[in-house]
């Protein structure tokens, strides 16, 4: 374990993340992990790291670091104007850095969440099987919190694994394509009319500024709701349901008016009807949108969604052989 980086400026919200935790949703602890798992995997693949090696996730405004020891880094996800010593460096590139080098990131001009990987992976505390930082629960990562100025980050001494060469540009840019977000109908489809689904799949939606790792709130037309009789168990609101489990990507219609897409740090349960769930590959694209970005929803069937997911898994598994 070696000290590799010192935080000079922490950025807006910078945390240690990996692929998240499994098996603790039934305890109310979210899955967590990189908001855009695809870009996390890509940055690690460039360096020859394990997929689960922890990376730094930066939201909207990146951080500035001083290098404490020679190593190699790679960046994917949001384009945050990655520079070392004032020189722009390509994303998806294995970039050697030396002691005393200054790594800077600025405001994201493409995407929302940027990933900085280091050879060997960042250290971070393991909590319930994951190094991912879950800030509300003070779990994992760097003392369960966002990074602060002066923090020193350690990494596993990965040695020189040799660069695989740059990741192709289309792989780096894939999560930025968010014109269309695909979803599967349900699990509370009976709360919405066909006209409601027509609205949902033809009208534009905009990402609200009140969005974060927990959930993305969306602004746009309200899908037509079926006046289903409510009970004392469901509550009286138009989309109230008996509380049930939340999947990452589930889109609930809160208070009958506001679509909210669940993120990696979402509550384990919710009490509003879900019109649909974003398919796994598109969750990465969803959370690479910035507040103000506009997109449209497209409905797909379950088997089609699974085919797309499997194709994406094959692409990710092929990262090592581009």
């Amino acid at each position, binding site marked *: 374990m070696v000290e590799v980086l010192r935080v000079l400026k922490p950025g807006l919200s910078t945390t240690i993340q990996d692929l998240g935790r499994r098996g603790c*949703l*039934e305890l109310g602890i979210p899955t967590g992990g990189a908001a855009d798992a695809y870009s996390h995997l890509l940055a690690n693949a460039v360096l020859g790291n394990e997929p689960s090696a922890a990376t730094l996730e930066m939201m909207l405004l990146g951080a500035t670091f001083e290098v404490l020891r020679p190593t190699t880094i790679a960046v994917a996800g949001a384009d945050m104007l990655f520079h070392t010593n004032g020189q722009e460096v390509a994303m998806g590139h294995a970039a050697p850095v030396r002691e005393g080098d200054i790594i800077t990131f600025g405001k994201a001009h493409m995407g929302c969440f940027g990933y900085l990987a280091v050879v060997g992976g960042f250290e971070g505390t393991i909590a319930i099987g994951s190094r991912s930082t879950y800030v509300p*629960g003070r*779990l994992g990562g760097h003392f369960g919190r966002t990074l602060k100025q002066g923090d020193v980050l350690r990494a596993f001494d990965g040695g020189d694994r040799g660069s695989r060469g740059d990741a192709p540009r289309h792989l780096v840019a894939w999560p930025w394509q968010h014109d269309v977000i695909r979803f*599967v109908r349900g699990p509370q489809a009976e709360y919405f009319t066909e006209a409601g689904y027509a609205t949902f799949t033809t009208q534009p939606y905009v990402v609200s500024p009140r969005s974060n790792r927990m959930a993305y709130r969306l602004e746009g037309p309200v899908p037509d709701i079926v006046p289903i009789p409510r009970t004392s168990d469901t509550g009286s609101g138009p989309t109230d349901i008996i*509380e*049930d*489990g939340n999947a990452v990507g589930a889109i609930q219609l809160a208070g009958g008016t506001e679509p909210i897409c669940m993120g990696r740090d979402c509550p384990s349960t919710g009490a509003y009807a879900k019109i649909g*769930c974003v398919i796994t590959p598109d969750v990465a694209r969803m959370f690479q949108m910035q507040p103000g970005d506009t997109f449209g929803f497209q409905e797909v069937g379950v*088997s089609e969604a699974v085919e797309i997911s499997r194709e994406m898994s094959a692409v990710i598994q092929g990262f090592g052989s581009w």
Partner: protein
Amino acid sequence: MRAEQRWCGDQHLLLVTSESVSLPNVLRVVDLNRRLMESELSPLIVETVPTWCSILIHYDLDKAGPAQFSSALVSFLDGVVETDAVTLKSRLVTLPVLYGGAAGPDLEFVARVNGLSTEEAVRRISTGTHFVGMISFIPGQANCMWLEPELVLSAAKYATPRTHTPEGTVGLGGSSIAIYSVPSPGGFQMVGRMPVPTYCPYPALPAFEESPILLRAGDRLRMRSVERDEYDDIAQSVREGRYRYDIEESVMTVSLAEKAVGGGSSQGS
């Protein structure tokens, strides 16, 4: 048994077992979830989220396709024979609570809407047995139902949820008690506060060595009333790492047919 399957995206399936919140219904969920995770389907399942009337299942797409998993689930459910009674591991956990005052600013409101004195409202809560139906929403939040119908209190939730609820707050919403395990927004009426944590991300007390979460679905809670002095003493022992929780391992048997509770103190694992 029969249950409805609903898709949630490409990797999740919601298994709906009933349409109303009741003790037998949530017990069916707890029991079915245990059987599912002990069944031959278990290797195909990443994790589950059992709630009042349903189980959200995250299945492993690398091991089974959606149609294959769905039909395996139907076969599993066909083999589940509904019993007249459910027996489950159910620890009896007794936690101290300071009721009313600044610790429970809504106690007087709760007493009034139930037509009771504050003393009687506290007696109903503190002598009751509260079945933990699910852990949900935030880390370790226990959502409970009274096991004694004659003790049940009810109160509407806040019309506009508060932005902050102190850690350890005991809340009443509808006829359900919830324990606010971490500071969070909330809408339940605040009747009291515990000096002991139910969520602890670092094992500052022995009870948290295995998990940061104290309570589990299926546990039964007693929330004994303590005065200010004892509350302060217990809080101090928590800070010094000396506090030991009052947890009795036991099993509980509940009749599903008659909605009556039996057993409860038989010693088990």
